[in-house]
């Protein structure tokens, strides 16, 4: 067992609690938050792959000393293989996801600490708690443990919206909680049905029970459980019918908060999506449902983005639309498609953070997010405008950036999987994404400046510029050397097919 595996979850939680205890000591809080933020992406790189059993309870087959003296009715049965402890699994794909989550969390916290006047308070606490929860969701092989962290992440997200101070943020947070109070219990019910049928919450054990005939894979309750877990997945990731509230959530958070929130959504999407494929891939309906909701998210997200005038809402809808690309990759059911989908997830987490923080500079300078009231900002900060333009190009899939590689792979995968229609749709919707971005960029930066537009005479913090440049470098590196990510993801994808 590797002690660094649980540290990836424990460290941000401990830091979050410590930040609360240090309330008022702004300098100490800043130093501690930045130090832990720097460490977050480093830990997964230093951790060796393996499994961690909480309490040290390995399966009996792996620990003969415990198995000694037990009756053969246990040691000769499937119980010998089952996992009695909460199990965290850490492999190459988790390493990449947690590394990227750590990078986004660090830059979101770094930017917030430099842009926010009051460092003390619950905002940084919530950012660390949310990051810890999503890390646990990515690591956990225990579906009930995953649900617990799913709920903590949902509460952290609501808290991040409440801390923003943006007009009507309370209303959006309340709506998100009300909708969550419908969806999250349904996810729990799905897990409870799985537990009732298999007697297990460990995902590997549930799959073993299904594959070895311990339960009927077509038991109606098991099928219902699949539907309920899929519904929870839609809520957690913000796919339709939750796309409207999810985009509202992004628009009511501060730009650095929104950057982190969308990363939470992307990695929740990936973690739950992988679990659904692992357990229920034998049902063709699951594959079709994933494709259907992903397509719906793409079409509704991108067309609704075109219709908005608030740039935060536009990026929110675009972020929802981009989730669809990941889902299409997962839904294709081929190793190539799943690898491309997971690569798209990594890219989306980076690019959308880049865009939120980039457009956040407009909010910082003007306090306005309505594009009808903005214009002529290119002369104010041409370098920042250039970085925002590059972020938009990256999101639309323009070479040589990372999303070009993942979208190209997705199109290739769709053709080789026998779904050329999906490839055509992905190209079409990428063009519309590009068009939406160009429209926003033109209205904010290029058209004549409105006479009544007031610009705050304050420089954009260096931390914001550094974050944007760092995201640009990652976009370029992954665009030029995609195998740095895909090599890590291919192993997981092979195991899912």
């Amino acid at each position, binding site marked *: 067992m590797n002690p660094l595996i649980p540290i990836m979850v424990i460290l941000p939680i401990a830091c979050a609690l410590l930040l609360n205890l240090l309330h008022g000591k702004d300098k100490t809080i800043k130093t501690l938050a930045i130090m832990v933020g720097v460490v977050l992406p480093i830990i997964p790189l230093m951790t060796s792959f393996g499994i961690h059993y909480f309490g040290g309870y390995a399966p009996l087959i792996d620990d003969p000393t415990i198995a000694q003296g037990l009756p053969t009715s246990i040691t000769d049965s499937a119980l010998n293989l089952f996992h009695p402890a909460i199990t965290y699994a850490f492999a190459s794909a988790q390493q990449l996801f947690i590394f990227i989550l750590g990078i986004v969390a660090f830059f979101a916290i770094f930017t917030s600490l430099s842009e926010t006047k009051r460092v003390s308070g619950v905002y940084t606490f919530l950012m660390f708690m949310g990051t810890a929860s999503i890390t646990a969701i990515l690591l956990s092989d225990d579906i009930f443990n995953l649900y617990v962290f799913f709920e903590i992440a949902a509460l952290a997200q609501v808290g991040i919206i409440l801390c923003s101070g943006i007009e009507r943020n309370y209303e959006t947070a309340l709506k998100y909680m009300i*909708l969550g109070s419908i969806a999250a219990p349904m996810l729990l019910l799905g897990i409870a049905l799985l537990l009732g049928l298999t007697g297990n919450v460990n995902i590997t054990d549930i799959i073993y029970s299904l594959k070895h005939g311990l339960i009927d894979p077509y038991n109606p309750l098991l099928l219902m459980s699949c539907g309920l877990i899929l519904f929870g997945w839609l809520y957690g990731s913000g796919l339709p019918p939750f796309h409207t509230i999810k985009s509202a959530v992004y628009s009511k958070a501060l730009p650095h908060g929104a950057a982190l929130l969308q990363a939470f959504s992307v990695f929740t999407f990936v973690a739950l999506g992988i679990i659904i494929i692992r357990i229920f891939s034998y049902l063709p309906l699951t594959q079709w449902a994933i494709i259907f909701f992903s397509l719906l998210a793409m079409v509704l997200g991108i*067309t609704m983005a075109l219709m908005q005038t608030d740039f935060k809402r536009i990026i929110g809808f675009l972020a929802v639309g981009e989730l669809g690309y990941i889902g299409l990759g997962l839904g294709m059911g081929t190793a190539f498609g799943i690898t491309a989908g997971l690569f798209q997830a990594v890219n989306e987490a980076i690019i959308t953070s880049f865009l939120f923080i980039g457009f956040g500079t407009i909010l910082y300078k003007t306090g306005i997010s309505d594009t009808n009231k903005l214009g002529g900002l290119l002369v104010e900060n041409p370098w920042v405008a250039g970085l925002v333009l590059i972020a938009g190009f990256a999101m639309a899939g323009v070479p040589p950036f990372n999303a070009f590689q993942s979208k190209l792979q997705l199109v290739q995968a769709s053709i080789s999987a026998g779904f050329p229609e999906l490839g055509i749709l992905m190209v*079409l919707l990428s063009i519309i994404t590009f068009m939406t971005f160009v429209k926003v960029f033109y209205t904010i930066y290029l058209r004549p400046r409105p006479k009544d537009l007031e610009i705050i005479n304050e420089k954009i913090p260096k931390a914001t510029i550094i974050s944007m440049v760092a995201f640009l470098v990652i976009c370029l590196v992954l665009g030029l050397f995609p195998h740095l990510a895909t090599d890590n993801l291919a192993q997981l994808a092979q195991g899912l097919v």
Partner: protein
Amino acid sequence: MNLYDLIIDKIQQIQDKAKEQEPVTNMSASAVLAAEITLISSVLIAAIMLRRISDILMVVVVLALFFIMVTAMPIIPRLKREQNDSLKSMEFYVILTLGVLITLFYWGTTHV
């Protein structure tokens, strides 16, 4: 009334009362038109995937969808009105999706 006028009229209808007096800009009109074309073409291309079930079904559904969508144009302003931030409409779609999903998974896999 041609299609363009129809779309402009609908955009004015969905704008707030305060904004009703404002003219519709070229940009918002072209955005609605682009969204409309995207929606229709996406739905039709997606419907082609039904060929995996039956070619005849695919042809019938594509033709029916094309006819319905062309006669229902402009769709996007109506869709935008539905995709608002009203809690009631969000709850309606959430519960509708839950019902359809559970029905499909509970009965669809084994009883159809």
